[in-house]
């Protein structure tokens, strides 16, 4: 029987034959998958950065400040599709990559997941009101629950921020883990496990 940090176990990173797709995603492919996922997350933030730049530096009217994608595809910004799609991608990404995290990084990653899960429920509520044709609280437009407390544009940014913060903490704990957690990791995100421990 070998342990997770033995040379035999490490060799499985290189030759993952027989592993399920999910196990590969959370093992030998975890580092690359996280990079892609983080790329998507940062692309979304880049859209907000571009929009803020258009409003506060270029002084464009808010209606014209549609980020980068929105300049070429205005319908993306005007419909719920983009926001809902991103919320869904975030939720799926957080879920399928969770098993690569161990210890405290796993805890922080799951905190991000559950916050995103609630964010997604809010989007589902909006969609539901459109489908049913009846809005909550007698409002003329679909309403989310958090809008009752934070009724302005910033709500979207707040949601993304409170998901992003635990996600970054999880990434940090995952990439720079304590030794006790590093030897339990199945991926190479924190570098090669120390063979000396075997």
């Amino acid at each position, binding site marked *: 029987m070998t342990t997770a940090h033995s040379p035999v176990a490490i060799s499985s990173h290189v030759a993952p034959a027989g592993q399920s797709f999910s196990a590969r995603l959370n093992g030998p492919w975890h580092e690359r998958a996280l990079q892609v996922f983080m790329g998507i997350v*940062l692309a979304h933030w880049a859209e*907000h950065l571009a929009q803020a730049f258009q409003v506060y530096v270029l002084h464009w*009217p808010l209606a014209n400040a549609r980020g980068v994608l929105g300049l070429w595809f205005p319908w993306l910004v005007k*419909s719920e599709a983009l926001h809902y799609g991103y919320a*869904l991608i975030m939720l799926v990404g957080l879920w399928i990559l969770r098993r690569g995290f161990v210890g405290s990084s796993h805890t922080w990653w799951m905190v991000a997941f559950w916050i995103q899960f609630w964010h997604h429920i809010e989007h589902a509520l909006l969609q539901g009101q459109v489908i049913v044709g009846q809005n909550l609280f007698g409002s003329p437009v679909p309403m989310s629950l958090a809008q009752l407390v934070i009724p302005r*544009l910033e709500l979207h940014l707040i949601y993304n921020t409170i998901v992003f913060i635990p996600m970054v903490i999880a990434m940090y704990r995952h990439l720079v883990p304590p030794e006790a957690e590093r030897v339990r990791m199945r991926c190479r995100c924190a570098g090669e496990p120390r063979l000396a421990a075997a």
Partner: protein
Amino acid sequence: MRENLAWPPLDVTRSTWAERFLAWPGSRLVMPLAMFALAVAAFAVHMSGAGAHPHEMAAHRGAPTRIIADQRVGPYVASVWTDPEVGSGPMYVMLEAADGQTFTPPSAVRVGIAPVSGRLPEVLHDAHSEPMRRGARFMTDVAFDRAERWTLRVLIDGSAGGGQLTSQVAAMPNAAAGPFVLVLSLLPFLAVTGVWWRAAVARRRISALP
């Protein structure tokens, strides 16, 4: 003999409710099924055209507040909702039949705005009708050019009768957080750069170990 590396072992040192849920065998089915169902629902909504509903952006634009509540005007009971931001202010006029009468839609609803200070003349905006299951909803976008108090007039005309509603509303600067949003949007890039740099340093240190 090699250890089965398909899934990491459960961390028995932690037992939060989230961990217990994850340890439940059914949890592996619940989440994929729920996500699949939500994705199908979202796709269906989008394909049906509802995804392009003009007011779906409410969650990202700000919720309107009611400035006139259930006020009798002619044969209608009217409510007026708005999200008065500088630049763009959506106005919603919600109408229902008064006293159990049969609802007859008005032929025209207009919204007039003028600064209370009197520095600009009143500008009238024609509101367009939007589908409703009960009563009627009229919507228009008005332009507040400055954060100040504005006089609002809603004019309703129709074969069943009509009337006028008046109120005042304070336009606010859009995106109240202001340039803070710019800083906030920059932070994720700084955070990821910091994490990446710290991880690179840690990796170099580990690879230098004997």
